């Protein structure tokens, strides 16, 4: 079953603009991760934010986490055409004593040159 739900499903912006993607989830988490996937390629890990963290930065990426609202956002600043890809949030949870990573449906980002 899917845990995370990304919003919007698709986003189209111009190069240089900022892109914001949101993710909502349902259960308690160990951490939340964001991945990128170019068409037909593998998943690339972007950033991990732990449940006790509220904000994290990595280069042009900024992730926030609000555990009270069970939501996270990924901000890509000064977007580039090369940022065109699908972005997935994934929640890392412990269920029945084992850790698992559950993905949302993704946001398809198109950055127009």
């Amino acid at each position, binding site marked *: 079953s899917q845990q995370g739900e990304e919003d919007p499903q698709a986003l189209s912006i111009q190069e240089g603009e900022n892109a914001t993607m949101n993710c909502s989830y349902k259960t308690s988490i160990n951490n939340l991760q964001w991945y990128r996937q170019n068409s037909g390629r*593998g998943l690339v890990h972007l950033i*991990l934010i732990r449940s006790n963290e509220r904000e994290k930065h990595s280069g042009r990426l900024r992730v926030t986490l609000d555990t009270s609202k069970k939501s996270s956002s990924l901000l890509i600043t000064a977007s580039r055409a090369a940022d065109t890809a699908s972005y997935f949030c994934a929640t890392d949870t412990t269920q029945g004593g084992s850790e698992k*990573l559950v993905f949302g449906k993704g946001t398809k980002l198109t950055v127009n040159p």
Partner: protein
Amino acid sequence: EAGVAQSPRYKIIEKRQSVAFWCNPISGHATLYWYQQILGQGPKLLIQFQNNGVVDDSQLPKDRFSAERLKGVDSTLKIQPAKLEDSAVYLCASSFRVGGYTFGSGTRLTVV
């Protein structure tokens, strides 16, 4: 360190045929996962191994899918017989600690 290796990269089969995918995780990673990603959707966990034991296979269609991880290292995922709706990318991932997942490049299966 070497990444998670998967083969083959692509596979085209006819419905009702069988197919097998192979995954070699990162050395020392005790946990191994198989995901199915249908076009336009997020990856869905099929089965999770801890060493050579199954931890979670609740979303594995056991009437046609099987997986094993002999000796707690390499793993194979098999589909027999394949259906059209099995067309997807099959991703293998491994981890050794909380949050430390590494994904392979996947096997793209097309069932015609």
